[in-house]
């Protein structure tokens, strides 16, 4: 049995750029055989990038990787797999047209004596794994027919069934109930006793404290600290994760948008799975932020309001009048616009021009008798380019030639062209650089000042705290708490510099999100 000092993975000086964005800068990660090593960091800290490099999906620009003492020279999923590394992806490694069992054992199929694939054995073995975790997933079903939770379970079993030397689990607990997480932990303990190295990623600090032996914390693509869990109380962990915010965001003036009429009122709104019974009001001139972890139901709520998913219960009122929203078209007519999360697929048509993209949602309005009024289209486009300060060589250039921040402004411009009263922004700053982020946040404040009601989803807490007047915390599809922004300020820190105060507020918010999560789980327990 290997001693605890054996190094299973040693990544040294890893750097990676995506276009102009530095995702990782000289990051070191050392994982011992026989330990559970937590990898922690906020959104955009570089966790998933470094894991994807270890797993061969990305090729590092600089740095070296050793697995089990041997340097990993070629970077591909096959090479990493051959080196004994297994990872669960967030649903991305599953083939919808194959069954659960076929997916789990893809490329490692059980064979009959004659060398043919033996799917029955695969089903039996898959059952054993699911039984061990005491979850029920039918291995014979097509993955395309499964819900998100079952897909994630399949991903987890696919990873743990590989008999790997290094097992990477990326947020495995989002699909699991508390009792299932316990069983996963028991299993992981057994694995590490056999000398397997486990890299565990989770946003749930209490889990980390229970399962991990050591932790490495990343922030903004750099190492912050690697330490034994015993030396990292949860408070300290959060402090390291949040860090000292750059002033880029902190110096955005929140200003004093006066709250006007209640523009958007949700009463007991429920979707098919999520959201669940959400009651919330957004006033004219107000920015309401939705905080919560992945899967907390924030995006689902946005999609229900925007008519992309059906509401099964509750009402949506706009300007105090009940609105019947059954399609995105209804939502646009009601004055609601959603800037979606996945910019590249849901926001823009990358190869089309700025003008085409900008006028897509208002085509009907500028096309009398079905013929598009090009002059009107140009006018709208030029006006938005000017007011949103979009940096582009011209309205005829393809949107794909713009930077991420400017692409996002095009999406926002496209929806502002519909002249909405209510604007919903889902992760508006995802994947754009810090400078453009503060520009987007300023823009959000401006829109509120113009009297629009803004609902904003962001996983970057500093952003929510900078942009919002009110912050609502979601977990498990439910709205748990609604606080005015000031509640997160520590009165004791009044007068100290903005960055410092923002950092403290962020820790406060992070704690509340964790609290909501725990409360949600207790409810779940009672329910079941």
């Amino acid at each position: 049995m290997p001693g605890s000092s054996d190094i299973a993975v040693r990544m040294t000086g890893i750097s990676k750029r995506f276009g102009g964005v530095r995702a990782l800068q000289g990051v070191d990660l050392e994982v011992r055989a026989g330990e559970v090593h937590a990898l922690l960091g906020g959104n955009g800290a570089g966790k998933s990038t470094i894991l994807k490099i270890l797993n061969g999906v990305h090729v590092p620009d600089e740095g070296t990787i050793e697995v089990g003492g041997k340097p990993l020279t070629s970077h591909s999923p096959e090479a990493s797999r051959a080196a004994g590394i297994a990872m669960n992806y967030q649903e991305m490694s599953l083939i919808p047209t194959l069954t659960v069992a076929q997916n789990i054992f893809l490329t490692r199929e059980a064979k009959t004596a004659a060398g043919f694939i033996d799917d029955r054995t695969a089903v039996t073995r898959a059952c054993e794994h699911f039984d061990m975790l005491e979850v029920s997933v039918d291995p014979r079903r097509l993955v395309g027919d499964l819900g998100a939770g079952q897909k994630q379970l399949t991903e987890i079993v696919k990873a743990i069934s590989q008999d790997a030397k290094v097992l990477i689990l990326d947020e495995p607990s989002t699909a699991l109930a508390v009792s299932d997480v316990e069983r996963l932990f028991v299993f992981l303990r057994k694995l590490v006793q056999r000398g397997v190295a486990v890299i565990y990623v989770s946003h749930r600090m209490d889990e980390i404290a229970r399962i991990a032996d050591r932790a490495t914390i990343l922030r903004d693509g750099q190492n912050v600290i690697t330490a034994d869990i015993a030396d990292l109380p949860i408070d300290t962990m959060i402090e390291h994760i949040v860090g000292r915010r750059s002033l880029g965001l902190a110096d955005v003036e929140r200003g004093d948008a006066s709250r006007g009429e209640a523009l958007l009122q949700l009463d007991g709104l429920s979707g098919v799975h999520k959201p669940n019974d959400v009651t919330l009001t957004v006033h004219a001139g107000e920015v309401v932020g939705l905080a919560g972890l992945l899967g907390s139901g924030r995006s689902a709520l946005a999609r229900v309001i925007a008519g992309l998913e059906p509401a099964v219960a509750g009402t949506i009122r706009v300007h105090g009048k009940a609105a019947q929203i059954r399609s995105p078209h209804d939502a646009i007519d009601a004055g609601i616009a959603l800037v979606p999360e996945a910019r590249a697929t849901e926001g823009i048509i990358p190869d089309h021009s700025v003008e085409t993209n900008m006028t897509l949602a208002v085509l009907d309005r500028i096309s009398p008798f079905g013929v598009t009024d090009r002059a009107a289209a140009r006018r709208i486009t030029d006006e938005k380019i000017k007011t949103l300060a979009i940096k582009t060589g011209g309205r005829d250039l393809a949107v794909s030639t713009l930077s991420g921040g400017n692409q996002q402004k095009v999406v926002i411009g496209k929806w502002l062209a519909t002249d909405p009263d209510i604007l919903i922004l889902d992760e508006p700053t995802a994947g754009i650089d810090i400078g453009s982020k503060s520009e987007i946040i300023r823009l959000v404040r401006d829109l509120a000042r113009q009297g629009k009601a803004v609902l904003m989803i962001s996983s970057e807490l500093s952003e929510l705290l900078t942009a919002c007047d009110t912050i609502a915390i979601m977990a498990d599809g439910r709205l748990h708490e609604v606080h005015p922004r000031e509640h997160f300020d520590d009165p004791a820190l009044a007068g100290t510099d903005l960055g410092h105060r923002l950092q403290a507020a962020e820790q406060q918010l992070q704690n509340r999100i964790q609290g909501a999560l725990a409360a949600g789980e207790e409810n779940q327990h009672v329910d079941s």
Partner: protein
Amino acid sequence: MSTAETRDGGGGALRAWLGDWRQNIIYIGFVVIFVIFAVTLNDRGFLNPNNLLNIIRQTAMIAVMAIAMTFVLSAGEIDLSVGAVAGLASVTVALSIAAAGPVAGVLAGLATGLAVGVFNGWLTTRIGIPSFLTTLAMMGIAKGVAMWVSDTAAVPILHQGYAWVFGGGAVGRIPVLLFWMLVLGVIGHFTLKRTSFGRRVLATGGGETAARFSGINTKSMKFRVLVLSSLAASLAGMLYAGRLQSGRFQLGEGDELSVIAAAVLGGTSLFGGKGTVIGTIVGALMIGLINNGLILMGLEFSQQLIARGGIIILAVALSQKR
């Protein structure tokens, strides 16, 4: 996958199979059309063994190409060059037999398919040209080369042994073509459903990113299915050549559409990830059956085209999930 599971339990399985009727429309449709023709065309000799064997003879080449096409479509690609490649191979086979004998002829035929397939695969996976365009261009190139090297004339094949093995022969009354179709069908079926190669092909077409993340070399899979398809096309060309005892550039012309129709009728998805070789063969037989029946009915060629198109649309429409 449904067919594998249906064996597990007796009556319940049958009910599941019928409940899944959209998936199995091809088999139901085949039986229905066969029965209709058997009843209405009995007096015109539809059920005459010679007529039925003729259907096999006319369908075998389409079936051979369609078996490989099932792999291509399952991997999310397409091959439009199969008909032209069959024509080209028939010419190279005939010329090589005349020059150096039957063994050289067979090797030349397969080499033709291999060369085209490697070129198709290379352009598609290395240069990144979609297979639709690669093989569309190759369709013209292959036909052009075939016309050029044969001087647009038929090249006779005088070697009787070759002609017997590749398409012309019969064991008793059973045409050799039936054996080719059955043997390749069985190999194709097991390769797709029961080997890791087949599983990787289905995974590549079912979700390319996911397949790559699972450690599958998806480019290599696409390369291989395109080579496989051209090889099958060259074999089909050799069968045409053997059956007609000559190589001609027109052989196989337009077959790509029947080949793709056979696979899609059989339940293979044009979008990848789903394919069945058995369905494909039945699809090919069904197209042959329809052609035969319409001819026996005495329809004119123009009417045959319209009726055939209508039946194919109906069958595919019925197989769609709502």
